[in-house]
């Protein structure tokens, strides 16, 4: 029991990382209803690009993060305008296949360019561990948690408080009505996809400074992100965060007390149970048909 606070702290830290890496998918899957299997690869591209910007271009961490956000945002915009635009309103299948194709392309092209070795991004806040009572945390992790929270708050404010956010919510509620009141829905869709991509890639770079970035990480990230989005409920912003924290806590406690080898299974079991008993997520009250 002595380790319990430490497990909980670890769970919350990892949970906030999960929440951040799933946040982009909440927008794309939850709101746009594109089952985006390339999410993890976009995360990976963000990490690889961050590594390239900081080590090869010699930028500092934050300029690197900005560069990644701009480049990947443009990339996301283009993906939506040129690929996803053409299969909108055709159900899930074309979207799934399209993003699977995209993920195969991104993962293998990245493999050609940088190889399989883990790439380490220098964290701007290196330094020793911090002792908070019974809990030990590294500064780098605390910094990453702080950046995660900031990013989440910014995203929340954009969606809830800006004109753009209002237009987004209108478009996903009723595209026709949104068009009638003069919203350019094509731009809104592309903007949302770009926003999801930006968040995913920034998460990739940020977490690349904690762990390391690897070309093959994409599949795992996508899976965890799906788990978090389903736990929290499709398109629920608060749900994604709580879902991430829940997954992190459950994994940390399971890993600490039961068996480390089986940690990954818990997420999927949670998903199956959630879909069976609360298919609209733990935190969405309104029952809405898919």
């Amino acid at each position, binding site marked *: 029991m002595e380790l319990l606070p430490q497990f909980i702290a670890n769970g919350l830290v990892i949970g906030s990382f999960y929440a951040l890496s799933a946040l982009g998918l909440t927008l794309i899957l939850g709101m746009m209803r594109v089952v985006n299997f390339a999410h993890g690869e976009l995360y990976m591209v963000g990490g690889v690009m961050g590594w390239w910007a900081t080590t090869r271009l010699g930028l500092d961490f934050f300029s690197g993060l900005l560069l990644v956000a701009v480049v990947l945002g443009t990339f996301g915009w283009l993906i939506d305008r040129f690929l996803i635009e053409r299969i909108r309103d055709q159900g*899930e299948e074309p979207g799934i*296949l399209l993003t699977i194709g995209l993920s195969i392309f991104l993962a293998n092209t990245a493999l050609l360019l940088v190889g399989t070795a883990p790439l380490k991004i220098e964290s701007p806040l290196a330094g020793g561990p911090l002792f908070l009572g019974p809990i030990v945390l590294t500064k780098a992790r605390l910094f990453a948690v702080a950046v995660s929270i900031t990013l989440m708050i910014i995203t929340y404010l954009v969606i809830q408080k800006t004109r753009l956010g209002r237009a987004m919510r209108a478009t996903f509620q009723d595209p026709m009505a949104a068009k009638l009141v003069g919203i350019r829905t094509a731009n809104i869709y592309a903007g949302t996809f770009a926003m999801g991509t930006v968040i995913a890639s920034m998460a990739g770079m940020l977490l690349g400074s904690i762990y390391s970035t690897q070309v093959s990480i994409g599949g795992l990230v996508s899976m965890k992100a799906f788990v978090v989005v389903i736990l929290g409920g499709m398109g629920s912003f608060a749900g994604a965060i709580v879902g991430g924290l829940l997954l992190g806590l459950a994994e940390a406690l399971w890993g600490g007390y039961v068996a480390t080898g089986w940690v990954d*299974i818990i997420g*999927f079991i949670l998903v*199956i149970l959630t879909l069976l008993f609360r298919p609209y997520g733990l935190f969405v009250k309104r029952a809405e048909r898919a």
Partner: protein
Amino acid sequence: MKIQRNCLTAFMLLAAVLPFVISDQYILHVAIIVMFYAVLATSLNLVVGYVGEFSLGHTAFLGTGAYAAALLSTQAGWPMWATIPAAGLCAAVMGTIIGAITLRLHGPFFVIITLSFSEVLRLIANNWVAVTKGPMGIAGVPQPAFLAQLDNLAGKHFYYAIAWLLLAIALYLAYRFVNSNAGRAAVAVRENRYVAQSIGIRPLNYSMMALVLGAFLSGTAGGFYAHYISFVGPEMFRFAFMVTMITMVLIGGKGTLIGPLVGALLVTFLEEYLREAQELRLSLFGLIVIAIVLFMPNGIMGFVTRHREKRAQQPAAPVSMPVTGTKRRSV
């Protein structure tokens, strides 16, 4: 429907003649893999094309079948003619369990819950070391004893015959299912769930039937694969297998019986052919998948059908091939 049947028969006859003409082991190996994938794609097509739900968990049945065959033959010493049907049955049981849970959900929920099930099974295969030997996998799944006396070519011919037989059974069962009352009921559910319910069709029954049949077929394919490669590992549950299967079904054209066959041929050849491009291979493959989604949304069979319809010049009476592009959304 008649043309489908004739095409299938012609294809199977051609395939039956092939080993008498060709004695190149590599080509025979590719042909065996094509038939293995054709069984898988046909079984997946029963769910994706006829139930109309997008399953990403079909590897669950493939892997269950493969592990069942491997365990039965290495632990219990069953011969191959018994393990392959047993593998199918195990997968069918798994299909009943998973189907009873998953088929209540639709759309993206169904996609993700099926994916979760296959991931859970993969993790079990990876971690339950006492039975599955974990990531090491089960090596040395025994081949039939008499193959030891024959040369390699005869061995390939033997496996070719088995694969042909499995494909013939799969196509026959799929054909019978699709052209039965149950198959038509399943199509009715796919096209409009509520209309189907209003005329007394219970959606769950028919989608269950299609799923369990599909699970059985892919279980036998898994059992065959275990003996042919003589190794089974947790990779059987991996998403990569799923990607191959799903591309085959969608490239060929879902909801047709020839589609998966064409898809299996095309994708396997494409993968072999792109080997020339070596490291670029998978990147190119990704681009091709994207291009097909954009430019041939109903797959090759959809393209062919539309072409035929256009040439038939019958605007008043559209030919009723069950190739509909968009699944009508339930409200």
